[in-house]
């Protein structure tokens, strides 16, 4: 026993620098295409010769290709076939039919329909209001999720269950609820009836769950030790949140925000009463479409619908790219 310890001390004294651990030396990480060159990284007397310096051997220089992973799945052709058919029937065909209809009078007809002042104004109001709603959701939805996951307070379960209520409620009911609170003769003295703020409030009401519900599970799964590590390194709570927690939540926040935005631009029921449907003021695209159908202008309706579709599609696309960029680094080869 004693001898062993002395021996260890002796060896330690002889080593001017702590030597690289043996096992890792022989653990040629799969990422290095060239593996370890024997001899080059030989560890004698604890002095590590430097890997002679061309960049090709620098492991940092060549990110490893991610290994193909085995996946479990249905027999491929069958699975892919079913998915394609289903998506076609449910999503692609109706959308294609709509798009074709909107070009019924050619590209110029389509363009004229979309750029008609009331049409353009309704699209602008929709996007503006939805953007405000999305940003507010991103911030407050994250906060709500945070409080629901990290804080203990009486009634937490009730609050948690309440989050989904606006989603489950028929939107016209939501509209009436909001109208009775913010409408004419508002009991709290806030009349938002027929204003853009009225639209914002109505849309915030129905989009509440999106960010909350996408951030919540990520926060629950989040590794608290990472935050403790940041604290031990001297980071304040705010710094830890901004530099450590937020980047982890970013994909979920982006995803939830995107869904909220997409829902907001298409929303009809909840804004129909409180919005007031004033053209160029509070008329949103969905109301404009409804109005055009009523006055028998199906082409105008179809054209604005396609414009909405394009906006929604673009939003989801941008968010996908953004969130996959943040996620890729972490999951690469993990």
């Amino acid at each position: 026993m004693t001898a062993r310890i002395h021996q260890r001390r002796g060896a330690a004294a002889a080593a001017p620098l702590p030597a690289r651990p043996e096992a890792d030396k022989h653990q040629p990480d799969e990422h290095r295409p060239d593996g370890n060159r024997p001899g080059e990284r030989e560890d004698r007397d604890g002095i590590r010769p430097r890997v002679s310096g061309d960049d090709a051997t620098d492991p940092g220089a060549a990110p490893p290709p991610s290994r193909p992973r085995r996946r479990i799945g249905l027999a491929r052709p069958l699975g892919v076939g079913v998915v394609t058919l289903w998506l076609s029937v449910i999503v692609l065909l109706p959308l294609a039919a709509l798009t074709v209809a909107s070009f019924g009078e050619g590209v110029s007809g389509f363009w004229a329909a979309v750029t008609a002042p009331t049409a353009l104004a309704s699209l602008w109001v929709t996007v503006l209001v939805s953007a405000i709603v999305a940003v507010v959701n991103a911030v407050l939805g994250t906060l709500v999720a945070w409080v629901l996951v990290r804080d203990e307070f009486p009634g937490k379960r009730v609050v948690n269950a309440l989050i989904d209520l606006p989603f489950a409620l028929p939107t016209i009911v939501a509209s009436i609820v909001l109208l009775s609170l913010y409408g004419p003769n508002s009991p709290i003295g806030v009349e938002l009836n027929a204003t853009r703020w009225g639209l914002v409030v109505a849309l915030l009401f129905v989009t509440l769950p999106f960010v909350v519900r996408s951030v919540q599970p990520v926060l629950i799964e989040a590794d608290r030790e990472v935050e403790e590590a940041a604290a031990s390194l001297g980071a304040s709570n705010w710094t830890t949140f901004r530099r450590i927690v937020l980047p982890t939540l970013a994909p979920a926040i982006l995803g939830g925000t995107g869904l909220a935005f997409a829902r907001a631009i298409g929303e009809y029921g909840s804004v129909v009463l409180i919005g007031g449907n004033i053209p160029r003021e509070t008329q949103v695209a969905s109301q404009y479409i409804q109005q055009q159908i009523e006055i028998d202008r199906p082409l105008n309706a179809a054209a604005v619908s396609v414009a909405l579709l394009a906006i929604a599609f673009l939003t989801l696309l941008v968010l996908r790219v953004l969130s996959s960029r943040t996620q890729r680094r972490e999951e690469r080869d993990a």
Partner: protein
Amino acid sequence: MITVTDARKNYGSFAALDDVSLDIPSGSLTALLGPSGSGKSTLLRSIAGLEGLDSGTVTIEGRDVTNEPPQRRGIGFVFQHYAAFKHMTVRDNVAFGLTIRKRPKAETDKKVDELLEIVGLDGFRNRYPAQLSGGQRQRMALARALAVDPQVLLLDEPFGALDAKVRTDLRQWLRRLHDEVHVTTVLVTHDQEEALDVADRIAVLNKGRIEQVGDPVTLYERPANDFVMGFLGSVAHFGDQLVRPHDIVLERDRATALALDAKVAGSPGVVEAVVERVVPLGFEVRVDLRADSGARFAAQITRRDAADLQLREGETVHARAVGRSSVVEVDPALAI
């Protein structure tokens, strides 16, 4: 020097720390050793400020930090599961403590390069943690903790998630690193071999209390009680005492056994036993024995001794114990 005085931590009515007092000398590598649930992590996290004490105090280098948050304790902490910042490169992980202190970039880079060199990750600056092996991640975490020049380095089962080979290599490397850097280090482990291998002082914990503190040799050879003896190595119930299996000598001849045993002061005497099994374990051979009292125990003898004795199952031998320093009184409640 880290001084913990009368530390108490309750979870409900359960005492995770039961009035623990412990001094950890500056520059030492101290292991907190104990079975799972004995309160090692709670003690370490209390030193770090990650856990608040119900009562008691913690001082680090003479400064009372009992009410300081972890940010102001001058510590470095390494977690079992690395706690890597996954969205940052190795470089940014290690630089984190310096970056948030707004140190000049050149200074930070120099320090990071130095540390990556020490932990053998100098070629890995631009990788993400997901692209490192477990051992590499833990060395990155170590470099990150050392970057802020902590007064004490606290490691909570740092090698627990690694496979056996990497684990033994990494702990010896940690030992050499400590001899180089000399930062006061506290290592939590449930693995007695790991504690004996790397630490120059060991505190044995059990049920929220400290059983014994000492250097590895003292603990192994002069355990304060049965628990410490049993936790630091295998034991055999021999007569009315506990002994190390390798301190049991077997003789064919009773007279010889008695004569030799008489020379060992305070020995537990000679026990007649029947060989139940002979198990070769490489260099050593384990002999499972049953005393005439019915008690079972095992002796560990060298291969050569086993060959000389030519033991067969069912034969009778005479066992005596040497190395009296490892003999402690059996708690009557534990005796078979």
